[in-house]
């Protein structure tokens, strides 16, 4: 259902959102790991209608070889949108946006990875957006963290990510597409165990003195997503866990 900018604004005035959520409520999240058997790691994350599949391959030989780093592995991330993921068909060739987001996602994940364990190697992360409704980079980061952990790549921490919005004095958690058109869109990612931010971007406009509150709301939302990521990974080994509880 096409929603007009005016509808979003009207609802926001009353502190409501088009899908009935409260300002601080994220969309319903579904996560699963190990969905692609032929890959070392994989995960699917759905945040509301946004759905992203992430596949991790590696560690592998560094190709091209001149990119190899004698002290640590090279992380290569490709973010792509499926042609049917958007309202108008997206051309399969990578757009400037996809190239920028590939870099930004890579830099959101890199601080969490212990790449020095795999010198001269390469780890490839592919994020494919199956359906786009706002927050595709955040869903990609959430999926990539779990896929990397599932592949057994040593990590300091998982990385959790969410897009925070600001409009007319109101701070919103987890923007959908209609909302990120209107609001200041501030996607962020963090390593909760270290309380460090690995991604932050912003567009549109918002008052300087709101940045503290925006970060606070973001950190709280990301920590909740982090709990879901941990649960999703552990759930994959649920048979073992159950046996351990019963007998181990």
């Amino acid at each position, binding site marked *: 259902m096409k929603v007009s900018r005016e509808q979003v604004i009207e609802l926001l005035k009353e502190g409501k959102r088009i899908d009935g959520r409260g300002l601080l409520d994220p969309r319903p999240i579904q996560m699963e790991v190990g969905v*692609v*058997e*032929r890959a070392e790691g994989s995960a699917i994350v759905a945040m509301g209608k946004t759905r992203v599949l992430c596949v991790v391959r590696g560690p592998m030989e560094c190709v091209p070889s001149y990119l190899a780093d004698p002290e640590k592995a090279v992380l290569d991330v490709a973010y*792509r949108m*499926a042609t*049917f993921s*958007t309202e*108008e*068909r997206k051309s399969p060739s990578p757009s400037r946006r996809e190239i920028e987001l590939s870099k930004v996602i890579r830099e959101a994940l890199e601080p969490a990875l212990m790449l020095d364990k795999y010198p001269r190697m390469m780890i490839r992360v*592919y994020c494919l957006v199956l359906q786009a409704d706002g927050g595709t980079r955040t869903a990609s980061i959430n999926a990539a963290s779990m896929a990397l952990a599932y592949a057994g790549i040593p990590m300091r921490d998982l990385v959790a990510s969410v897009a925070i919005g600001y409009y007319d004095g109101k701070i919103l958690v987890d923007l959908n597409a209609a909302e990120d058109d209107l609001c200041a869109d501030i996607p962020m990612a963090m390593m909760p165990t270290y309380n460090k931010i690995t991604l932050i971007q912003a567009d549109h406009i918002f008052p300087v003195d709101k940045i503290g509150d925006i970060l606070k709301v973001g950190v709280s939302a990301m920590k909740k997503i982090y709990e879901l990521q941990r649960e999703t990974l552990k759930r994959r080994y649920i048979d073992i866990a159950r046996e351990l509880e019963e007998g181990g």
Partner: protein
Amino acid sequence: MANEFLLSIRRGFLSNIERMSILSYLEKNKRLDGRGLLEMRELKLMPNYIEKAEGSCFVSLGKTKIIAGIKVSIGSPYPDTPNQGAFIVNMETMPIASPSFELGPPSEPGIETARVVDRGIRSAEFIDLESLCIEPGKSVYLLFIDLYPIDDNGNLVDAAFYSAIGALLTAKLPKVEIEGEKPVLVRDETVPLKVRMENLPIQLTYGKILNKIILDPTNQEELLIDYKITMAIARGNIVGIQKSGKGAADIDDIIFVANDLKSRAEKIRQNILAQIKK
């Protein structure tokens, strides 16, 4: 984690011990996964997998998985068919389903698969192209059927075919309104895409190893196969054939495949329709 597949696919060929294992099973008319020579893996269709797309279907054929998505736009008809809409099948080969795929434009196998799938559907005249006409000679619906392999455990071409069929069977066209001079899509009002159910094509792929013909090969088997025959049938007629692989095919094998496919087509058709209705 299915290590055995990663290993043999990364290498691109089987060790002599793995090859002997597959061959010794074949001699007893069995396959490594317990199937008979002419047994298909389980085919599952999940239509409307991507709700924002005009049509979509997630298919699993055994462990091979693929998603088809349909996007609709308005364009000009081809000059020789002014009253018909158009469709094109494309397959992207992102390194998701297989380590042998590379980032970038579709590879040769991707393009071949897309064209084979396209051919069966087109020759069968399954889609009612006249119903896609908006203004004769001026504007028609264009259907883009895009295939994204998710997990390649062999026989992507058949999985791709059924995902396209599943997407077409459940596709919905947005209505058209004339705004100013131009027709524009009204996305929240839709009508089902018109297809000719009696022309529903059924496609299967067979492989030849030594003197045995197998149906629906896995990717380990694909490494041993001399050649593959993909064939599509609709309403008792052959609507597509593709021989692929380096080997040379026996005439008897081609005839065998045609007859075997004919004997299975109805059952597969019932299976597809039952799953779409759910």
